């Protein structure tokens, strides 16, 4: 069970939160071209590494927050618990 560092509550079990996916800016709805808008809707960088993403602390403080996580190791940029820097394919 991954510990997600909620900026308000502190580290919480990932099941207490809702995953919000990649953070990306919303284009201006009045000027966006179809290509730009649909890139915003559908296309993702989906890197195997550091990713800025959104979480919603659903069972806790009910605040949305954005944080960087390494999708290969599940390490959070916000310093993780010491000693747990290893992740990956076990």
């Amino acid at each position, binding site marked *: 069970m991954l510990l997600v560092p909620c900026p308000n509550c502190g580290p919480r079990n990932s099941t207490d939160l809702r*995953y919000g996916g990649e953070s990306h800016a919303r284009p201006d709805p009045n000027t966006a071209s179809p290509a730009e808008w649909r890139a915003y809707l559908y*296309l993702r960088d989906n890197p195997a590494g550091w990713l800025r993403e959104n979480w919603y602390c659903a069972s806790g403080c009910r605040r949305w927050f954005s944080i960087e996580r390494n999708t290969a190791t599940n390490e959070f940029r916000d310093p993780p618990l010491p000693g747990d820097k290893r992740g990956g394919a076990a």
Partner: protein
Amino acid sequence: MAGLAGRLRKRPPKYSAAALAWKGLRGQSWPRVWRDCDLQRSYDAVVIGGGVHGLATAYYLARNHGMTNVAVLDKAYLGSGGSGRNTAIVRSNYLTPEGVAFYDRSVHLYEQMAVELNINVMFSQRGHLTLAHSDSSLRTMHWRAEVNKLGGVNSSVIGPDEIKKECPSLDTSDHPRYPIQGALYHPPGGVVRHDAVVWGYARAADHMGVEMHQKTEVTDILCEGGDGPDGKGAGGRVTGVRTNRGDISTPIVINCTAGWASLISTMAGVRLPITTHPLQAAVTEPVKMFLPTVVVSGSLHVYVSQTDRGELVFGASVDPYANYSVRGSLEFTEGLAGHVLELMPGVSRMRILRQWSGLCDMTPDYSPVMGFTPVDGFLVDVGWGTYGFKAAPVSGEQMAEAAATGRTPKLIEAFALSRFDNGELVGEKGAASVGH
């Protein structure tokens, strides 16, 4: 096939009971199932990913289109990805006409596979039950059944009594929190020995001259003329691939990877509508056979079947957050067990022996991305979410046709990457989210 004979290498011994007995008596050993080849500097086509999709694509390139100067590259061993980690369920009871036609072709190819590939893939068409626990999911089952019938697929909605007949171990009473109200019954659905499919395609492709290269990792895709850096991106064309074993020049690169689809496509400057999530599975210790059909419950997020070895094999829905690490989680097995016991209270003493997970490339409309891209010569067969294994034969067949003819076959028109530019998504969401 006669016209192909010229290109065939000396045929290795066929598999058969007689051959087994003969070799058994004489203590002979079997030859290598596929050759160990040196990596050439150039191929007519390079397939990235040595899983069922990549191997099937290579096989059909050789068999249907006579393209045998083809290399399949895998960064690990053949079948090391989703091909060996899935729960081997095959079905065609999808929701949309295009989905039904596509997967029906796949089931048809699976039915011929053992004979065509001369290896027993143990396709067990034991029937497939998708349970409904609410009137809304029952409505979706009826919807699927009607579309299936119109597509010529054997599929119908049955009630609790018939369900009990097909699968006595299910609790069809009204005691559970979410009683079983009905099910979509799909007799042709079943399970396959997934590794045998991998080995069968590899062996057959090898016999026709295709080269399988394991431990060969693609580190870049070489392009020219594109609007991005290094000639990558829209408007450009593929010239080759760079690997940990050197560069290869080729006019055609087919991305048949799962889990790494985004990363490989980025090498050609193509951005995909994909996020990668692990899908977990688990297997129990064996017990004597008691579960005759494949059972799926969308509302309870679980699917289960019993192998010929007597093990129960389980899967669920993908992990909630994007992730490239293939570790199992405890909460997965907890949720799984709870849901299985709601369906079959009698198995509470069975023991989970092993859990594992594989990577799934999820798309917004629960449908694959197949065919051409803005980069000439770079084709994708990706975005297979949790349903890639069952589609492997038809995907290979169709992708081979696209690569060999330069035209998009009718069967995969609906799955083109361009649908995300014009906002015309496929309507599988309703059914595919119900899982396997």
